[in-house]
């Protein structure tokens, strides 16, 4: 046994040095040098340079004048980026149906004129609880409500939505989507 203990201990120590110290330190150094913004959380800043969010992390919006994002299951409040979490509700759990029914009701109440079926991503909790995006359909569903509240031309609003839309990456990968935080910041900036 001791024949193995010494080489095992020293080898573990040396490989820890290589894979646990040198490797992450080198990646950090290069990341900070070449991809400073991404490596530090892709922060969004206001005119004063104060961080007001991350382009990759969603925020909670409940005011009807803003586009709402995906429901979030993080605790103790939605979009808690210090403790990511999904709902883990199973498909046949009555609590899931109840939660979705309640969300649909809130959406209908905010815009009683809208009789369209509700896009599923707008009423189901995301995996991370931090999803920054909604589908194009989910943005479209909310467009009339926001145009009305902000007394804004729908075509103009659609332009803003398009400007915050990300297509499939390289035209192939993933799903087309709208970044909710970017869109809402653009709305406020448009001063309407």
């Amino acid at each position, binding site marked *: *046994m001791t024949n*193995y*203990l*010494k*080489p*095992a*201990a020293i*080898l*573990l120590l*040396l490989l820890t040095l290589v*894979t646990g110290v040198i490797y*992450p330190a*080198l*990646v950090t150094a290069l*990341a*900070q040098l070449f991809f400073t913004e*991404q*490596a530090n*959380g892709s922060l969004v800043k206001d005119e004063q340079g104060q961080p*007001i*969010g*991350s382009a*990759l992390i969603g925020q*909670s919006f409940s*005011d009807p004048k803003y586009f709402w994002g995906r429901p979030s299951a993080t605790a103790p409040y939605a*979009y808690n*980026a*210090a*403790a*990511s*979490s*999904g709902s*883990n*509700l*199973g*498909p*046949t*759990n009555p609590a*899931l*149906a109840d939660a*979705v029914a309640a969300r649909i009701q809130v959406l209908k109440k905010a815009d009683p004129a809208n009789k*369209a*079926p*509700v*896009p*599923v991503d707008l*009423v*189901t909790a*995301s*995996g991370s609880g931090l*999803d920054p*995006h*909604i589908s*194009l359909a989910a943005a479209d569903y909310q467009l009339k409500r926001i145009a009305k509240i902000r007394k804004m031309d729908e075509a103009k609003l659609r332009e803003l939505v398009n400007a915050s839309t990300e297509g*499939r990456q390289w035209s*192939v990968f*993933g799903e087309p989507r709208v970044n909710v*935080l970017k869109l*809402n*910041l653009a709305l406020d900036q448009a001063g309407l």
Partner: protein
Amino acid sequence: MTAQGLLQIAIYIVVLLALVKPLGAYMARIYQDQPAGLENRLYRLCGIDARQEMSWVQYALALLVFNLLGLLAVYALQRWQDVLPLNPQGLPAVSPDSAFNTAASFTSNTNWQGYGGETTMSYLTQMLGLTVQNFLSAASGMAVLVALIRGFTRRNSESIGNFWVDMTRSTLYILLPLSFVLALVLVSQGVVQTFKSYQMVTMQEAVSYQQPKQNAAGKAVTDAAGKPVTETVKTQQQTLALGPAASQIAIKELGTNGGGFFNVNSAHPFENPTPLSNFLEMLAILLIPAALCYTFGVIVGDTRQGWAILAAMTLVFVALVFVAVPAEQAGNPALATLGADQTASSQQAGGNMEGKETRFGIVNSALWAVATTAASNGSVNSMHDSFTPIGGMVPMWLMQLGEVIFGGVGSGLYGMIVFAIVAVFIAGLMIGRTPEYLGKKIEAYEMKMAAVIILIPPLMVLGGTAMALMLDAGKASIFNLGAHGFSEVLYAFSSAGNNNGSAFGGLSANVPFYNLMLGLAMLFSRYWLIVPVLAIAGSLAAKKSVPAGAGTLPTHTPLFVVLLIVTVVMVGALTFVPALALGPIVEQLQMTGHH
């Protein structure tokens, strides 16, 4: 399924298969070359003679001692992280049962996570403990595979190689360079990599929430009935968890580890920010297990043998992708009746979006779920607990097949080679000949060891599930009720008992009962398989090689591919269909029958 979805699946499989030959050939060279230069000095520092060959017993002892020390190191780091440096959030020491579970999990290449990364582990623990074991547990699996392959290539030999050399070369020349490149590409996409503390930002809208009220002494205030009193708190601050994530995520995928930096693993936008990062991480999951098939072919001197095994793996994989993706795309009938629109269109992914991210949609979430459980990776980019019953059964069954459809780096292929041995044995029984595989006679000793290897994981899975469901401590952790609750427990033991690491996350697994039970299941199914695999390697190496004769079953033909698939699937089906019937199958019937 949409055309866009089909295209993404096709690109994934084509790119994966295109990389098999170049990477496989490179790895074969690494394992056949003699150590030189700096590497030799490293061995001398450790007092290792790189040219000294080991018997299978010595090889197993070296591996066990090395892994045991790794386990103790991860345990110690967690227990003392509160007094160690690089802990900007001031996170406390991890509890003994959770620390044991995590240490067992990361050394056994399972990477089951009972804890949430950003709320539990200091940067130091993530780097020195978890990242290191991500490398070394993967390299240990690769070493065992190489030793088994040598069993086939050697004749009348008492040794199967040198564990220290095989493990070190796997780490330094295969895992490290690939991880380094992948980590930097991931950072370019937005994966965080910093030692700074968590970032505070001011949100656009304030949120209010309830929290337990505390008095001046920091004790929870209770009302007359003894219930805790809550108070409403309003905040506009969002705390963004950061850390050296990219360097760990790269090896998490490449080493089929799967342990995430953050709680929700690769669903977290800082761990997997874009569709491209998703594609690359998903590719990294299957890359080395697939390429090792070619390495195997090169070393045994007949690449057709490697392609045959890869074909069997790929066929099962593709078939199950086309079960899981449509199941998730079909969505949840309960939500349809409420008025939610689940149809796929150019405007939305549709389908069962609970627990899934918008940027990945249905196809990339379900494809990931199949890939991560085909390989014993276990990282997730969506919450498997919220999958439809059939969509969730596919990952569960892939684990139960013994993690041999690609499987873990090294461990997947050595598991599949054991199934190949069983397949030639069955064929031998049918035609009345002594079975042989790659020129070696398969005899009683090999078959006994193969039986142990195939039977241990189901014992852990079914025995563990049964025990958990009989005890209050096991039932108390279940989150979803009914058939789905059963699935949560079955999934947990399937994952631990096959060293996968993914979870139906609703189960509160960070309790002493599950930390202990699952920790032991992970250790038993890792090391009680490795030792008999090495025993087979030793036994084969000692045999002479018999030339193929008229009665030899060729093992590179489509017939053999089918035979191998049937063996794997039959064992998996016969063992687990009764259990699956109680969980996902009954739930599927409830879900569709009810609406």
